[in-house]
């Protein structure tokens, strides 16, 4: 409970250590849901040899803090933690962690998915992929806006 809720960092993260810290000292926790996003070696039909992640320092952290506040209001959860990496990443690397604790599994699963859907369309991060045909900025996906709309929130990111 004492650690930061949001970290944007170049360093890798340890899922086990993050979950242990998130639920430490809270015997009311009966469920932990965690999502880890990783770098794929292919995207849109092309090989990806590496990827650069850029963010808006300050705004990114504040935006994710606000998303966690929204999740705490919307769901019966006890705590949440988001770690997002920036800088140069390679296939197999971890990119993002969202972990949520709650008394029972349902709310933890839902809040974890809500936070990922929110983050994909509202947190200022940008991916640039390096492929055999050169570097390219990744396009936003309409499907990600639609995922957020399930929660009653209009994203308008990819439009």
């Amino acid at each position, binding site marked *: 409970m004492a650690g930061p809720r949001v970290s944007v960092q170049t360093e890798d993260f340890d899922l086990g250590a993050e979950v242990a810290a998130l639920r430490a000292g809270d015997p009311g926790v009966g469920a932990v849901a965690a999502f880890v996003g990783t770098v794929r070696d292919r995207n849109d039909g092309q090989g990806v040899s590496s990827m650069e992640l850029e963010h808006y320092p300050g705004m990114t952290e504040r935006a994710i803090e606000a998303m966690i506040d929204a999740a705490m209001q919307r769901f019966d959860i006890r705590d949440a933690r988001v770690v997002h990496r920036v800088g140069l990443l390679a296939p197999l690397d971890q990119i993002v962690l969202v972990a949520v604790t709650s008394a029972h599994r349902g709310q933890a699963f839902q809040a974890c998915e809500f936070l990922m859907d929110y983050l994909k369309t509202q947190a*200022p991060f940008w991916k640039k992929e390096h492929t055999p045909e050169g570097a390219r*900025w990744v396009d936003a996906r309409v499907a990600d806006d639609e995922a957020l709309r399930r929660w009653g929130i209009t994203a308008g990111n990819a*439009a």
Partner: protein
Amino acid sequence: MKVAVRYFASIREALGPGESVTVDAGATVGVVRDALIARGGPHAAALQRGRALRSALNQSLCDENAALTEGAEVGFFPPVTGG
């Protein structure tokens, strides 16, 4: 009044990390975008209407009707692609 403009991702590659822009009192984020487009060249290409562009005022997402105050920070960037 002066506002600080910051660019990210493909917009930053085209225009650099940011610049100071002077606009009339009461201007909106959209007015800043139009003033930059009016410079022509890479500004017009990067910020042109019809191109998907998102904006932030003082580090919160906003639409282009958001009103500015002296010293405001305006961010222009493409749709976000994190996660």
